[in-house]
């Protein structure tokens, strides 16, 4: 799942939205720098910061609370006020893009 989708996120979501007011991060869950880097290195994922949530501080609450969601890649859209406006149930490019664009359209 991830080897296909991680590089696709850049192209299908971020470049499609192409808005300077969008910040996008790829957050690795539960792995160390070496593991995350070698994976990204293999796929040559350029242009997006890769964050390391090694202790699952941010990921775990979703895994605990959100039922029926594909565990990875989990996508979250947070609006300008810091509220969650989108959580992926599965990898769905159109739904993610729509959520981002709706959030960008709000003041």
């Amino acid at each position, binding site marked *: 799942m991830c080897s296909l989708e991680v590089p696709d996120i850049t192209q299908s979501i971020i470049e499609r939205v192409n808005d300077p007011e969008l910040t996008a991060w790829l957050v690795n869950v539960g*792995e160390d720098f070496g593991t995350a880097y070698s994976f990204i290195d293999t796929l040559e994922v350029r242009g997006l910061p890769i964050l390391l949530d090694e202790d699952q501080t941010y990921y775990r609450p979703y895994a605990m609370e959100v*039922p029926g969601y594909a565990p990875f890649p989990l996508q*979250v859209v947070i609006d300008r006020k*810091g509220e969650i406006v989108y959580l992926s149930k599965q990898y769905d490019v159109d739904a993610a893009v729509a959520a981002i664009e709706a959030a960008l359209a709000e003041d």
Partner: protein
Amino acid sequence: MRLLLLLSACQTPCSEGFAKADGVCYPIASEQEEPEEEVIPSVLDLPYGDGITTFYQESITQGFYEVMDASDFDETQVIMIGQGGALLVDRDSGAVSQAWDGVRLLKVDAQDGIAVGAGSEQPMLLPEFRPLQAWNLDRAEDIAIYDDLIAVAARTQGVQLFNAAGTNRLGNIATDDAWAVELQGTRALVIDDRDLEFWELSDPANPVLVDSVKLAGEGRDISWVGDRVAVAVGGWGGQVLNIESDTLVSAGLAIMPGSVLNLSLEPNGEWLWLASWEAVGVAWVGGEEPIVVAHEPPGQSAMAVIAGEGRGYIADWMTLTGMDRTGLTSGELHLSQVHAGDILMVDPRAESLELEVTNWGPAPLEISLELPSGLSGDVGPITLAPNSSDSFSLTGAIVDAPGVRLFTDDADEEMVELDFRASATGVGSTHPEISLQGFEWPDGGLQPYNSGDHAGEVLFLAYWTSW
């Protein structure tokens, strides 16, 4: 011990210290420290029906057996295999009649008391653990035996065909990425990447493709009885297909909680057992579409299941579990939004709520609600036909509404008490401020990232892992 790992069906190699089986990375176990037990709510907590009876649950006492796969062995026994070795298990009692230690095999198939195993070690003939000859493969994901033929699914190295004695290589089905194989007569079913392929092998040196169909997800296991086929797909369920005049025709999906990596049709081909780590499920597949009828929590982790008549024998990690479905008659309540016991996480801003109820059972289900003060709306009763959904509309103080009672005639869920709580991580809640180390490729230099530095922007997060 219960290993709670987040699942994914990525095809990439596992991290160091992990090994892959059925597309899932799990810790290379025996000498390693076990992961700390995490309290993660699982489907075990869900108010599903459990029309399945567990008739034995035996801990594996000898050795360090983590059983990963199961197959019919003979009339009275099934064979289970995994880290640690192989076990012959009595169908009625779960008693181990024979154990072979020290071989790491992850997949097994058998006929008339002869078994074949495959995995991280060389594919072998059991019980003498004799490696197949003429062998030169990196890795075998699955193995099958039928009459005089053995087939080994070996990812990019094709499906290798051997005689049943394992002494001669007879041929090869070329594949992009072969994950599973089943044999019947001179025919083979092969999961090749996202395709299910149907091959004629009467001349194993020259396999002929009969038909091929795109699966609904990444296939990981095949069960095949007569003209009916079930494939574990995408981790989330079973895809049922029928063979009609040499053509594979999809009959629909049996969707299950958890990650379904293994499944098994009963000998009559009308009932399907599905194993996910969190639940064992039974689906009726004798009709037009599959209907998931019941779930039952396994003893530990249902790695695999082999179905007998009315029964499922579960390779349950370090437990052997026997289950029986023949008592099933009722409808089955399924509440899609409910998790963490009977707590329903809702949008903290919500002033109304649609409580969705689904009947996953084979019989109609009558459902009614009893509401606490402060909530109003439909209370039913409503009658749900098998395999259908409806919803109750509620308004009022949703978040602070404990003790909504839901009554059903589901035999084992006559009353479910729901507690609505504001979600801390759902849509509508505030995301905690993020402060993590990170890097960009190819530079790789670590630096801090803080969401506070991006106030007023829209933030998109994609959580991922390398496995």
